[in-house]
Protein backbone atom coordinates (compact mmCIF):
# COMPACT_ATOMS: atom_id res chain seq x y z
CA UNK A 1 0.00 0.00 0.00
CA UNK A 2 1.40 3.42 -0.96
CA UNK A 3 1.72 5.99 1.81
CA UNK A 4 -1.16 7.96 0.21
CA UNK A 5 -3.42 4.90 0.45
CA UNK A 6 -2.20 4.19 3.99
CA UNK A 7 -3.00 7.78 4.99
CA UNK A 8 -6.50 7.52 3.52
CA UNK A 9 -7.00 4.20 5.33
CA UNK A 10 -5.99 5.83 8.65
CA UNK A 11 -8.56 8.61 8.17
CA UNK A 12 -11.26 6.10 7.21
CA UNK A 13 -10.43 4.18 10.39
CA UNK A 14 -10.80 7.39 12.43
CA UNK A 15 -14.29 7.94 10.99
CA UNK A 16 -15.29 4.30 11.67
CA UNK A 17 -13.97 4.55 15.24
CA UNK A 18 -16.00 7.71 15.90
CA UNK A 19 -19.13 6.24 14.31
CA UNK A 20 -18.82 3.10 16.45
CA UNK A 21 -18.24 5.25 19.55
CA UNK A 22 -14.99 3.41 20.35
CA UNK A 23 -13.22 6.50 21.60
CA UNK A 24 -10.85 4.45 23.78
CA UNK A 25 -9.20 3.49 20.44
CA UNK A 26 -8.29 7.08 19.59
CA UNK A 27 -4.72 6.65 20.87
CA UNK A 28 -4.06 4.25 17.98
CA UNK A 29 -5.13 6.88 15.44
CA UNK A 30 -4.40 10.38 16.78
CA UNK A 31 -1.08 11.85 17.94
CA UNK A 32 -0.88 12.73 21.65
CA UNK A 33 -0.47 16.43 20.78
CA UNK A 34 -3.21 16.28 18.09
CA UNK A 35 -3.45 19.87 16.89
CA UNK A 36 -7.04 20.89 16.26
CA UNK A 37 -7.29 24.14 14.25
CA UNK A 38 -11.08 24.23 14.39
CA UNK A 39 -12.12 27.74 15.48
CA UNK A 40 -12.30 27.84 19.31
CA UNK A 41 -10.64 24.45 19.79
CA UNK A 42 -7.32 23.70 21.52
CA UNK A 43 -4.70 20.97 21.04
CA UNK A 44 -4.23 17.58 22.74
CA UNK A 45 -5.73 14.12 22.43
CA UNK A 46 -7.73 14.46 25.68
CA UNK A 47 -9.39 17.65 24.38
CA UNK A 48 -10.55 15.92 21.20
CA UNK A 49 -11.62 12.83 23.17
CA UNK A 50 -13.83 14.87 25.49
CA UNK A 51 -15.15 16.85 22.49
CA UNK A 52 -16.15 13.66 20.65
CA UNK A 53 -17.59 12.10 23.83
CA UNK A 54 -19.65 15.27 24.31
CA UNK A 55 -21.00 15.06 20.75
CA UNK A 56 -21.93 11.38 21.22
CA UNK A 57 -23.61 12.16 24.56
CA UNK A 58 -25.88 14.76 22.93
CA UNK A 59 -26.32 12.93 19.61
CA UNK A 60 -25.87 9.18 20.38
CA UNK A 61 -26.30 8.24 16.69
CA UNK A 62 -23.93 10.97 15.44
CA UNK A 63 -22.39 9.64 12.20
CA UNK A 64 -19.74 10.99 9.88
CA UNK A 65 -20.11 9.68 6.31
CA UNK A 66 -17.23 10.22 3.89
CA UNK A 67 -18.45 11.54 0.52
CA UNK A 68 -15.07 12.50 -0.96
CA UNK A 69 -11.56 11.64 0.19
CA UNK A 70 -8.58 13.24 -1.48
CA UNK A 71 -4.89 13.00 -0.58
CA UNK A 72 -1.56 14.55 -1.54
CA UNK A 73 1.77 14.25 0.29
CA UNK A 74 1.15 14.09 4.04
CA UNK A 75 -2.37 15.56 3.77
CA UNK A 76 -5.79 13.92 3.52
CA UNK A 77 -8.87 16.03 2.79
CA UNK A 78 -12.41 14.79 3.41
CA UNK A 79 -15.84 16.11 2.55
CA UNK A 80 -18.29 14.39 4.84
CA UNK A 81 -21.91 14.39 5.83
CA UNK A 82 -22.76 14.73 9.51
CA UNK A 83 -26.05 13.20 10.65
CA UNK A 84 -27.54 12.61 14.07
CA UNK A 85 -30.47 13.07 16.42
CA UNK A 86 -30.45 15.65 19.21
CA UNK A 87 -31.40 13.27 22.07
CA UNK A 88 -29.72 15.05 25.01
CA UNK A 89 -28.86 18.62 25.94
CA UNK A 90 -26.23 20.28 23.78
CA UNK A 91 -24.44 23.56 24.46
CA UNK A 92 -27.13 24.77 26.84
CA UNK A 93 -29.87 23.75 24.41
CA UNK A 94 -32.48 21.30 25.70
CA UNK A 95 -32.89 18.10 23.68
CA UNK A 96 -35.20 18.75 20.73
CA UNK A 97 -35.25 15.29 19.13
CA UNK A 98 -34.43 17.09 15.86
CA UNK A 99 -32.44 15.38 13.16
CA UNK A 100 -29.38 17.23 11.88
CA UNK A 101 -27.82 16.63 8.47
CA UNK A 102 -25.11 18.95 7.19
CA UNK A 103 -21.73 18.96 5.44
CA UNK A 104 -18.23 19.49 6.76
CA UNK A 105 -14.77 19.66 5.18
CA UNK A 106 -11.65 18.39 6.90
CA UNK A 107 -7.94 18.48 6.15
CA UNK A 108 -5.68 16.19 8.18
CA UNK A 109 -1.87 16.14 8.38
CA UNK A 110 -0.44 12.67 8.93
CA UNK A 111 2.87 12.16 10.71
CA UNK A 112 4.44 8.92 11.94
CA UNK A 113 1.35 6.91 11.04
CA UNK A 114 -1.01 9.08 13.11
CA UNK A 115 -3.20 12.11 12.53
CA UNK A 116 -1.19 15.06 13.84
CA UNK A 117 -3.13 18.17 12.77
CA UNK A 118 -6.68 18.98 11.72
CA UNK A 119 -8.36 21.91 9.99
CA UNK A 120 -12.15 21.94 9.64
CA UNK A 121 -14.84 24.08 8.09
CA UNK A 122 -18.36 22.86 8.84
CA UNK A 123 -21.74 24.28 7.92
CA UNK A 124 -22.56 25.23 11.53
CA UNK A 125 -25.13 27.77 10.32
CA UNK A 126 -27.22 24.92 8.88
CA UNK A 127 -26.60 22.79 11.99
CA UNK A 128 -27.92 25.60 14.20
CA UNK A 129 -30.93 26.09 11.92
CA UNK A 130 -31.76 22.36 12.12
CA UNK A 131 -31.62 22.49 15.90
CA UNK A 132 -34.40 25.03 15.51
CA UNK A 133 -32.60 27.81 17.30
CA UNK A 134 -33.10 31.47 16.61
CA UNK A 135 -29.96 33.28 15.44
CA UNK A 136 -28.06 33.80 18.67
CA UNK A 137 -24.67 32.88 20.09
CA UNK A 138 -24.48 29.34 18.82
CA UNK A 139 -25.13 26.22 20.82
CA UNK A 140 -21.91 24.90 19.32
CA UNK A 141 -19.84 27.67 20.95
CA UNK A 142 -21.61 27.04 24.25
CA UNK A 143 -20.82 23.36 23.92
CA UNK A 144 -17.12 24.09 23.35
CA UNK A 145 -17.08 26.29 26.46
CA UNK A 146 -18.47 23.51 28.65
CA UNK A 147 -15.45 21.40 27.70
CA UNK A 148 -12.99 23.90 29.14
CA UNK A 149 -12.43 23.05 32.77
Amino acid sequence: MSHIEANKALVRRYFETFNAGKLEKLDEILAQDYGDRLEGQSAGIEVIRSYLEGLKASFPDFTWTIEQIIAEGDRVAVMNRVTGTHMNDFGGMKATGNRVDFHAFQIYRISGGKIADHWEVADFARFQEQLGAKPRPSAFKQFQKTLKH
Partner: protein
Amino acid sequence: MKDVTLWYEAFNRKDPALLHRILSEKWVDIPPAPGQPAGPEGAKQILVELTTAFPDLTIRIEEVLQDGNKVIVRSEIAGTQRNAFMGFPAKNRKMAIQAIDIHEFKDGKILRTWHTEDWMTGFHQLGIFEK
Protein backbone atom coordinates in the same frame (compact mmCIF):
# COMPACT_ATOMS: atom_id res chain seq x y z
CA MET B 1 -4.93 22.54 -12.58
CA LYS B 2 -3.15 24.87 -10.21
CA ASP B 3 -4.81 27.52 -12.43
CA VAL B 4 -7.41 27.16 -9.70
CA THR B 5 -5.86 30.32 -8.21
CA LEU B 6 -7.70 32.30 -10.94
CA TRP B 7 -10.93 31.69 -9.02
CA TYR B 8 -9.48 33.43 -5.94
CA GLU B 9 -7.72 36.16 -7.94
CA ALA B 10 -11.06 37.03 -9.55
CA PHE B 11 -12.40 38.02 -6.11
CA ASN B 12 -9.21 39.77 -5.02
CA ARG B 13 -9.05 41.81 -8.25
CA LYS B 14 -12.87 42.15 -8.54
CA ASP B 15 -12.50 40.85 -12.08
CA PRO B 16 -15.37 38.54 -13.18
CA ALA B 17 -13.62 37.96 -16.55
CA LEU B 18 -11.16 35.70 -14.68
CA LEU B 19 -14.09 33.51 -13.63
CA HIS B 20 -14.97 32.88 -17.27
CA ARG B 21 -11.39 31.79 -17.92
CA ILE B 22 -11.43 29.11 -15.21
CA LEU B 23 -15.08 27.96 -15.02
CA SER B 24 -16.74 25.55 -17.45
CA GLU B 25 -19.95 26.84 -19.06
CA LYS B 26 -21.60 23.91 -17.25
CA TRP B 27 -20.09 24.81 -13.84
CA VAL B 28 -22.17 23.64 -10.87
CA ASP B 29 -21.86 25.20 -7.41
CA ILE B 30 -22.67 22.88 -4.47
CA PRO B 31 -24.52 24.23 -2.54
CA PRO B 32 -25.70 27.27 -4.51
CA ALA B 33 -26.67 30.50 -2.73
CA PRO B 34 -30.42 31.24 -2.59
CA GLY B 35 -31.55 32.45 -6.03
CA GLN B 36 -28.11 31.95 -7.61
CA PRO B 37 -28.23 31.70 -11.44
CA ALA B 38 -26.75 28.54 -13.03
CA GLY B 39 -23.20 28.42 -14.39
CA PRO B 40 -20.53 31.14 -14.42
CA GLU B 41 -23.22 33.86 -14.24
CA GLY B 42 -23.96 32.65 -10.72
CA ALA B 43 -20.30 32.99 -9.74
CA LYS B 44 -20.26 36.51 -11.18
CA GLN B 45 -23.31 37.42 -9.08
CA ILE B 46 -21.60 36.13 -5.91
CA LEU B 47 -18.45 38.08 -6.74
CA VAL B 48 -20.45 41.30 -7.14
CA GLU B 49 -22.49 40.72 -3.95
CA LEU B 50 -19.44 39.89 -1.81
CA THR B 51 -17.24 42.71 -3.08
CA THR B 52 -20.11 45.20 -2.72
CA ALA B 53 -20.74 44.17 0.90
CA PHE B 54 -16.99 43.91 1.61
CA PRO B 55 -15.16 46.38 -0.69
CA ASP B 56 -11.78 45.38 0.84
CA LEU B 57 -12.50 41.63 0.45
CA THR B 58 -9.42 39.41 0.24
CA ILE B 59 -9.26 35.65 -0.11
CA ARG B 60 -5.89 34.30 0.97
CA ILE B 61 -5.00 30.79 -0.12
CA GLU B 62 -3.56 28.82 2.80
CA GLU B 63 -3.17 25.40 1.22
CA VAL B 64 -3.70 23.67 -2.16
CA LEU B 65 -3.85 19.87 -2.57
CA GLN B 66 -4.35 17.91 -5.75
CA ASP B 67 -5.48 14.32 -6.28
CA GLY B 68 -6.40 13.25 -9.82
CA ASN B 69 -8.85 15.75 -11.30
CA LYS B 70 -9.72 17.32 -7.94
CA VAL B 71 -8.08 20.29 -6.24
CA ILE B 72 -8.76 21.23 -2.61
CA VAL B 73 -8.14 24.76 -1.44
CA ARG B 74 -8.17 25.98 2.16
CA SER B 75 -8.42 29.75 2.36
CA GLU B 76 -9.18 32.68 4.62
CA ILE B 77 -11.86 35.14 3.53
CA ALA B 78 -11.46 38.56 5.15
CA GLY B 79 -13.08 41.95 4.79
CA THR B 80 -14.92 44.86 6.36
CA GLN B 81 -18.68 44.96 5.93
CA ARG B 82 -19.56 48.38 4.42
CA ASN B 83 -22.90 47.49 2.82
CA ALA B 84 -25.82 45.12 3.49
CA PHE B 85 -24.97 41.43 3.28
CA MET B 86 -27.62 38.67 3.05
CA GLY B 87 -30.11 41.26 4.23
CA PHE B 88 -28.08 42.27 7.31
CA PRO B 89 -27.15 45.95 7.52
CA ALA B 90 -23.47 46.91 7.76
CA LYS B 91 -21.98 47.61 11.20
CA ASN B 92 -18.54 48.32 9.68
CA ARG B 93 -17.05 45.27 11.39
CA LYS B 94 -14.26 43.08 10.09
CA MET B 95 -14.46 39.34 9.58
CA ALA B 96 -11.82 36.70 8.86
CA ILE B 97 -13.20 33.21 8.31
CA GLN B 98 -11.97 29.84 7.07
CA ALA B 99 -13.21 28.20 3.90
CA ILE B 100 -12.51 24.87 2.18
CA ASP B 101 -13.40 24.23 -1.47
CA ILE B 102 -13.11 21.14 -3.66
CA HIS B 103 -12.88 21.93 -7.38
CA GLU B 104 -13.37 19.15 -9.94
CA PHE B 105 -11.63 19.81 -13.26
CA LYS B 106 -12.52 18.67 -16.76
CA ASP B 107 -10.64 19.78 -19.90
CA GLY B 108 -8.70 22.40 -17.94
CA LYS B 109 -11.75 24.10 -16.43
CA ILE B 110 -13.69 23.73 -13.19
CA LEU B 111 -16.82 21.65 -13.74
CA ARG B 112 -18.05 21.41 -10.13
CA THR B 113 -17.20 23.13 -6.84
CA TRP B 114 -18.18 21.88 -3.39
CA HIS B 115 -17.58 24.41 -0.63
CA THR B 116 -18.20 25.49 2.94
CA GLU B 117 -17.34 28.76 4.66
CA ASP B 118 -17.49 29.37 8.41
CA TRP B 119 -20.31 31.93 8.15
CA MET B 120 -21.37 31.16 11.73
CA THR B 121 -18.10 32.68 12.98
CA GLY B 122 -18.41 35.42 10.36
CA PHE B 123 -21.88 36.44 11.56
CA HIS B 124 -20.57 36.74 15.12
CA GLN B 125 -17.62 38.86 13.99
CA LEU B 126 -19.90 41.12 11.94
CA GLY B 127 -22.20 41.65 14.94
CA ILE B 128 -25.24 40.23 13.15
CA PHE B 129 -26.57 38.53 16.31
CA GLU B 130 -26.20 41.68 18.43
CA LYS B 131 -29.25 43.82 19.05
